[in-house]
């Protein structure tokens, strides 16, 4: 078994004429919290979609837990995706379902839990992210942006994934909620670490990143500029990173 849960080998991605990812070569350590840091448009979301097999690289391979994911066929890929939990940038809650039903959705699809067990698990998950009973039965359109994020987090955790991906989980949240969400991600990580759980967070919040991450991948214009453990990152001499750090 490799020390990496995810590996990029010579990965490039073009959309039409424009190259969004340039020849990426790096690994994401298993059992760690890794943050992918970078400015808007750097290609962070696109990178994450490669990990999930939602987007295929133009060249190169993406290896997740020893499986070359871009070579998997449609059905094995679907099966494989159960390894992942994902929290989307704008939560991506199903707008036709209540918070409760959103979190229950993966449980209803993929487990044989009874209605009572689902009820308990969902309410437990919602409570752990700070969503009360009243909000649980509201539609996403009736919730604030922060509450939607938290429901999205609960939904991502429902199936006990091995790799948890967060696309800017705290953008648009107030500082207190931001810390709560980070604490929650950390807690989730530590709770699951014994089964080789990896957390991958996309962010442009430098301070929270330094506080909570084990490794930092810094991206700029589709390239990985630095990939370091947090301590070394803080001492990086790279001018762009220095600028980012001094914000």
């Amino acid at each position, binding site marked *: 078994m490799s020390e990496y849960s995810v590996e990029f080998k010579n990965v490039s991605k073009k959309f039409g004429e424009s190259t969004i990812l340039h020849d990426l070569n790096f690994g994401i350590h298993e059992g760690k919290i890794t943050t992918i840091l970078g400015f808007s448009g750097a290609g962070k979301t696109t990178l994450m979609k490669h990990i999930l097999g939602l987007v295929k690289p133009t060249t190169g391979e993406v290896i997740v837990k020893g499986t070359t994911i871009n070579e998997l066929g449609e059905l094995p890929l679907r099966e494989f995706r159960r390894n992942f939990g*994902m929290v989307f940038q704008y939560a991506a*809650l199903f707008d036709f379902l209540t918070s409760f039903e959103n979190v229950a959705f993966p449980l209803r699809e993929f487990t044989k839990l009874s209605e009572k067990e689902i009820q308990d698990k969902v309410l437990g998950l919602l409570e752990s992210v700070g969503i009360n009973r009243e909000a649980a039965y509201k539609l996403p359109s009736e919730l604030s942006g922060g509450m939607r994020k938290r429901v999205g987090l609960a939904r991502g955790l429902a199936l006990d994934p091995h790799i948890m991906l967060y696309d800017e989980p705290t953008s648009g949240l107030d500082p207190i909620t931001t810390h709560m969400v980070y604490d929650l991600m950390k807690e989730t990580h530590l709770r699951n670490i014994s089964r080789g759980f990896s957390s991958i967070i996309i962010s442009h919040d430098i301070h929270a990143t330094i506080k909570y991450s084990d490794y930092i991948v810094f991206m700029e214009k589709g390239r990985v500029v630095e990939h370091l453990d947090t301590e070394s990152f803080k001492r990086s001499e790279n001018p762009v990173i220095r600028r980012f750090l001094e914000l």
Partner: protein
Amino acid sequence: MVQLVLKQINSIGESLISLVNGLGDFTLFVSRTIFWTFKPPYRVKLLFDQIYFMGNKSIFIIFLTSVFTGAVFAMQIYLGIKAINPDSFIGPIVTIALAKELAPVLSGLVVAGRCGAAMAAQIGSMKVTEQIDALEVMGINGYQYLAVPRILGAMISMPLLSAIFLLVGYTGAWLIATKVLMIDPTLYTQKISDFMNLGMVVEGLIKAAVFGYLIGVIGTYQGFNVTGGAEGVGKGTNMAVVWGMITVLVIDYFLTTFLAQIL
């Protein structure tokens, strides 16, 4: 001059390429939806939800359209052939026209406008807000979960709605014929059964099912192809309606020719 001609040829070439690309995309979409229709799990509840939704969305307009179509049509035929003692003809002419053409085509136009648009809007907004990605991440196929129930739903709802159209339109015509034009009700129904057969009703229902399928495929295809925010959703919705309606009208011609040969 040569430059200009070359430019023309170039632009024709480009439109051709994009048309072929579009058709290729569409064909791919159609084959994927067919593949996922036969792949378990079969999402029966979603299918019934869609049938209910589509019925709910169009039934009122279908009622309104059909009762007036029947009534106006009866009146027009009466006025048009007044000279040759129309009493025996109005019933069969109106009913045959309703059964074979008016019910499926007008229901199709209503459903394309109401449901085709709704399909593109719902799926399109799910696309731009990453909800379809969220489904995919959970290992659920978007075509299976979103497109298949809508396509099958439209295929089932359309004959039902078309049958309602026929029934209500028939009633509208009957009311005008017997209560306003004072045609003898016994003669009216007698003549209908002289000239009509069940095959004509079946023909209309087959048409309706085909239209339903096409409206469903076009509406969901437009939804899945939405790009770029709310504006894109509006554009996709619009395309779904326009292409849905055009397709119903054009395919009706070919279907009529085809069904005339086999029925």
